[in-house]
């Protein structure tokens, strides 16, 4: 073989994070540290009404009483919250009507990212809300959506323009007291996306948010709120990148989904924050709380491809409150070098005849640690709940780890729960089989990994599936030892 696995491994290790550039945009950044005044100032800066400021301050007060959780199976140096800036905004901040008005340098950034906004606008028909250093800079396709009555804007805009919706739903799924990082986010979130689909409307295009941390020494705290009113449908995409930096950056987002009766929300994430270099230096701490609530006959489907971040701590969950509601979770988590991921889901069955499916694929390579942590809970009054979970782990190399921590709690005798998990490496016989048929080892591995994650990749919307597949290749090729 001309191209040995050793070489492949080396190439992968030295492969630079391709999104690791830094855009020189003048930013308006707050002094480091966190206190009541900073919270007040953020709110002021965003021109928020008094109730919002108060909500933040309440969240801050309850956050002060919480301690950082340490139950996750990850080891990291806790970020010093007094040493980061909680607000960083690209300075030339005006409201843009169309893309032509956006700072060209910023647009250049997006082109580098490979998400040419223009192109997407024309070709794929995806409406994009771009959040850079926690501030929403461009929302495309707003008008087209407005015709259908769909509201798709930054959350700060929504606070000003649709306070009744925000007031009603913000914190209703993830209250500020939920956990340490959700509390922190509630106090200091700077921006994020807001989406409302009116009754019976099927959103004609994929909605998308792109997050990027640009400024050094800042934390990114964005908040996403998606409300699908009765009988509506929306597919929502989220992607993220960050520049390469030596220090760890903190990302603590909150995503709340509300699916009212007979609504359906499909939420897809491709997470590709900077994972740190191959010595494990730098990288983003990704501590995210995501949860959706399902009313009668509604459905929430989470799909995630996690390839980035130095430390990930993320459990997109579904509260199946309504009868006949459905929760789904499809995940691929890839860790390489020194990355650590502790991710999974929670399915809380409360209504009758609820169903949930969990498919989780973990792939660990290098010296990384990959954990699946999930909860399936069936309440005492939930009749005929049905759950199927499958967690498969693939290990590449002998210095990584794969862990599974499923919690299954059933209080109802009509519940049917199945859980299965396997851990294995790519079999020599599988590779041999491919070799026999003239497929070289490198391709064989790609083929097998692709097959391994196919169940999840298939759930992604087209545009994302391509990107995700590429990401998988970057993260994995050649790491087989």
């Amino acid at each position, binding site marked *: 073989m001309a191209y040995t696995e050793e070489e492949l491994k080396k190439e992968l290790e030295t492969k630079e994070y391709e999104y690791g550039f830094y855009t020189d945009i003048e930013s308006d950044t707050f002094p480091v540290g966190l206190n009541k005044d900073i919270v007040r100032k953020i709110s002021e800066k965003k021109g928020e009404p008094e109730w919002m400021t108060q909500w933040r301050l309440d969240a801050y007060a309850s956050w002060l009483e919480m301690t950082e959780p340490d139950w996750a199976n990850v080891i990291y140096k806790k970020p010093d919250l007094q040493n980061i800036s909680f607000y960083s905004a690209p300075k030339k901040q005006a409201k843009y009507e169309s893309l032509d008005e956006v700072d060209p340098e910023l647009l250049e950034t997006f082109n580098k990212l490979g998400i040419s906004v223009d192109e997407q606008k024309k070709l794929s028909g995806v409406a994009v809300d771009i959040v850079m250093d926690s501030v929403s800079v461009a929302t495309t396709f707003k008008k087209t959506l407005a015709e259908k009555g769909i509201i798709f804007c930054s959350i700060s805009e929504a606070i000003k323009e649709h306070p009744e919706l925000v007031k009603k739903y913000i914190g209703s799924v993830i209250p500020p007291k939920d956990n340490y990082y959700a509390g922190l986010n509630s106090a200091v979130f700077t921006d994020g996306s807001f989406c409302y689909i009116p009754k019976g409307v099927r959103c004609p295009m994929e909605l998308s948010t792109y997050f990027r941390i640009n400024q050094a020494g800042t934390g990114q705290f964005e908040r996403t709120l998606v409300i699908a009113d009765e009988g509506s449908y929306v597919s929502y995409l989220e992607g993220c990148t960050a520049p390469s930096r030596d220090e760890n950056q903190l990302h603590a987002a909150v995503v709340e989904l509300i699916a009212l009766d007979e609504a359906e929300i499909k939420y897809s994430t491709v997470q590709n924050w900077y994972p740190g270099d191959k010595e494990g230096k730098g990288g983003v701490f990704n501590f995210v709380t995501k949860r959706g609530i399902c009313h009668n006959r509604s459905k929430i489907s989470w799909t995630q491809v996690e390839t980035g971040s130095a430390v990930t701590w993320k459990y997109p969950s579904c509260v199946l409150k309504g009868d006949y509601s459905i929760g789904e979770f499809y995940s691929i988590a890839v860790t390489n070098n020194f990355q650590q991921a502790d991710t999974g889901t929670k399915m809380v069955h409360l209504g009758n005849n609820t169903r949930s499916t969990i498919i989780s694929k973990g792939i660990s390579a290098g010296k990384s640690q990959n954990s699946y942590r999930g909860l399936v809970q069936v309440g005492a009054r939930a009749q005929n709940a049905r759950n199927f979970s499958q967690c498969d782990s693939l*290990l590449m190399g002998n210095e990584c780890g794969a862990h599974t921590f499923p919690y299954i709690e*059933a209080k109802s005798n009509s519940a049917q*729960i199945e*859980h299965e998990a396997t851990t294995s490496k790519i079999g020599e016989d599988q590779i041999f089989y491919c070799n026999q048929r003239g497929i070289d080892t490198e391709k064989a591995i790609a083929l097998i990994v692709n097959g391994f994650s196919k169940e999840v990749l298939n759930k992604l919307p087209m545009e994302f599936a391509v990107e995700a597949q590429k990401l998988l290749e970057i993260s994995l090729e050649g790491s087989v030892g």
Partner: protein
Amino acid sequence: MEFKEKLVSSHLAFEDGMEFPETVQQVRANALKVFEAKGFPSKKDEAWKYTSLASLINQDYSIFPKDETNVDLKEVKKYFLFDTDTYKVIFIDGVYSPFLSNTTHDGIDVCLLSAALSKPKYKKLIDSYFNKIANQEDSMTALNTSYAREGTYIYIPKSVVAEKPIEIIHFSTGKEKAVWLQPRNLIVVDQNAQVQIIERHQSLKEHPVVTNCVTEIYVHQDAFMDYYKLQNDLETASLIDNTYIVQEKNSHASVHTFSLGGKLIRNNLNYYHKGEHILSTLKGVTILKGKQHVDHATLVHHAQPNCESHQDYKGIFSERSEGVFNGQILVDKIAQKTNAFQQNNNILLDDKATCNTKPQLEIFADDVKCSHGCTIGQLDEEALFYLRSRGIPKKEAKALLTYAFANNVLESVQLPSLKKRINNQIANKLGVSLGFEL
């Protein structure tokens, strides 16, 4: 006075008047410090998330075994495996009963731990085995260690096959209002030796009993150890069982746990591998009703390559009973070619029954085959219908199906008379006569 304080403050009186080597006393004193610092585990501890000891420790117990109580053989005979000749180590209210027991020093040692701890003859063995694998940081184990005095000591020398199974039975008579028993067992199976052990805790009268038992088992190279735990006690008796097993090269250790009765049972079963080509088997059947609570916490630590472990736990829960399974498989980096399997299946028969299960895998080696599966469900309606359509009444049909569900765990029981007995007990629990024998 809180019960914890009583345990701590009574320790001095416990040590007083006993003649044990200083090393043993030191071990006890250290363990007491650990327990004093940690106290009883609460639901806040991840390992005790689903099991609360609050209902046990809110009352007072007598913790010192009083003098010997005599029990009529007729009264307890039914708890023995009567048709098999066995070695017996019998304790009544925590005190050894020479009248009922049948110990030996002929070729193998089956005797009392208190004798082994205090006699110089055993000093070398005690120094190298006593309290070496028990988790020093676990508060329930530490509590047992601090009061470790009585229990069973078994030593099977090199290449000896124990000809008869060994029965360890603890009776409580209800002579005292409430008792807290802390037996401590030490079992050493030397190279190429074989032994079968049956352990049972039984109260003869309804009264509060809590048994906090620790068993350390060493299975040396090429040895074979087969252990059966029968837990079919009255609904006033609770058991916290801590078992630690170390296995060496080519050895096979198997533990079957039958939890059919009791108020609260917690089984901590830990396996540590010290050599290659080890086989570990952990099997259990749990059939509960009423407000019973059984918690199985297993750990298999694969620390060497080419080893295998099999876990298979079945649970059948009716009425308001609660079942917990918390299985952990740990595979170290060097433990390549490990095969570790874990299976946990549960049936909830009634609406108020609860089942919490947490099968964990923690794997650091890449060339392994590890899997776990767990299900919670009901009896197959179709299978039930099939049987009923052939004239089998609903109750029997249900019993047949649940029996079949638990059966593959029974299949690996090596002692025919024990198998028959458990078989009958299960049928009894399910409230039917099966009409056939195994």
